[in-house]
């Protein structure tokens, strides 16, 4: 491996230096180049154990710094933000739920009030109707009574009129009868005349 490398290095150096270069000078440079080639040997730099302490040291520092930054600043902050947001969302949802409930309550109260008002109105209407009916009844009764009173009064007057008419008729009949009897030259017996007129009228009135 290394001899191959040396060969390669020599070739490269010879090419670059040209044929005119002194042989011992070229050889020295070739040796230097070979040494350099050995240091950066083609192969996996991952397996170059010389660099391990360096990488591990810086890795440790990076991880400690990163762990500190994340655990002390970033992660608590993000957790707080996320829980704040969750809280805000939950709060909003609960508020919305509450408003909804309130709206429902308001609707129920409205419905109740409406039903109550309807009932009240019905009651008032019924009460009014009853009152009016009562008044009406009273008025009708009053009117009936008045009518009855008037009727009886009228009947009384009619009777009076009739009675007086009867009495008048009787008087007239008696006077006429007495006159007739006098005219025909009879002796007026007031008692008999009255009797006869009364009999006649009695029959006429029946």
């Amino acid at each position, binding site marked *: 491996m290394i001899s*191959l490398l040396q060969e*390669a*290095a020599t*070739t*490269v150096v010879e090419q670059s230096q040209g044929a005119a270069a002194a042989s011992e000078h070229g050889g020295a440079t070739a040796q230097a180049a070979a040494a350099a080639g050995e240091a*950066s040997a*083609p*192969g*996996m*730099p*991952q*397996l*170059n154990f*010389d*660099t*391990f*302490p*360096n*990488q*591990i*040291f*810086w*890795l*440790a*520092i*990076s*991880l400690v*710094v*990163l*762990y500190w*930054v*994340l*655990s002390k*600043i*970033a*992660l608590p*902050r*993000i*957790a*707080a*933000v*996320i829980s*704040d*947001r969750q809280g*805000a969302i939950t709060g909003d949802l609960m508020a919305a739920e509450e408003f909804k409930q309130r709206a429902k309550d308001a609707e129920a109260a409205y419905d109740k009030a409406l039903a109550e008002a309807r009932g009240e109105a019905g009651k008032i209407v019924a009460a009014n109707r009853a009152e009016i009916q009562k008044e009406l009844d009273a008025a009708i009764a009053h009117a009936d009574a008045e009518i009855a009173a008037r009727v009886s009064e009228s009947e009384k007057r009619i009777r009076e009129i009739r009675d007086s008419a009867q009495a008048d008729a009787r008087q007239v009949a008696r006077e006429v009868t007495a006159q007739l009897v006098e005219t025909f030259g009879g002796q007026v017996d007031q008692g008999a005349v009255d009797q006869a007129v009364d009999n006649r009228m009695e029959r006429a009135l029946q």
Partner: protein
Amino acid sequence: MASDTEKETGLVFHPMQQFEVSPLFGDGPVHWYTPTNVTLWMAIAVLAITALMVLGTRGRAIVPNRLQSVAELAYGMIHKMVEDVAGKDGLKYFPYIMTLFMFIVFGNMLGLLPKSFTVTSHVAVTGVLALAVFISVTTIGFLKNGTAFLGLFWVTSAPLVLRPVLALIELISYFVRPVSHSVRLAGNMMAGHAVIKVFAGFSAIAVISPLSILAVTAMFGLELLVAFIQAYVFTILTCVYLKDALHPSH
């Protein structure tokens, strides 16, 4: 070998060069404390995550803006995952799992930027992540359940004769977890990036270049998906392991 191909065809293939760990300043050796491209890209990942998770949420808005939505989405996804997979008592470890997820997903995504360095393509990084999960989960298991945690390996629903055999298999599979956990992530990242690089190398040839660019585009789309899915898989497996530790009964 690479030089041979170079010489013959004019093609340059360095698919693994992107994974080199190199110092940011100068050309010295890489000591454990040297600021390297690993440092740079991990720092960028941490800053990007901070920008998203901290600056993005600074409004604390009830109705989030776009950045805050993304942060909350990530939070919600991992939070739900932990709760669903590991249970309510697993939520205690949520910040730890969130850290893992955010680091891996940002490491993967940032690695897709051209010229960037993919920190999660290194087994050193994913290995540490997986080992950290393995060790902490095992510790939690023993602390929460005591020796009852060993019931995880003793399959009581199986016939008694089979139980020792199953216990051995379970034990091996338990200890292989961190290996598969880390190699899965690193391997996926490395392979995808290397393939993109190889396709990109072919674009040096004029005739093939349209096809090559098309292939790179397609691979990039696939890699975007893989970058997210691997972070998701790593995280959900962590949750599964955590569930095993919290409730070891089968």
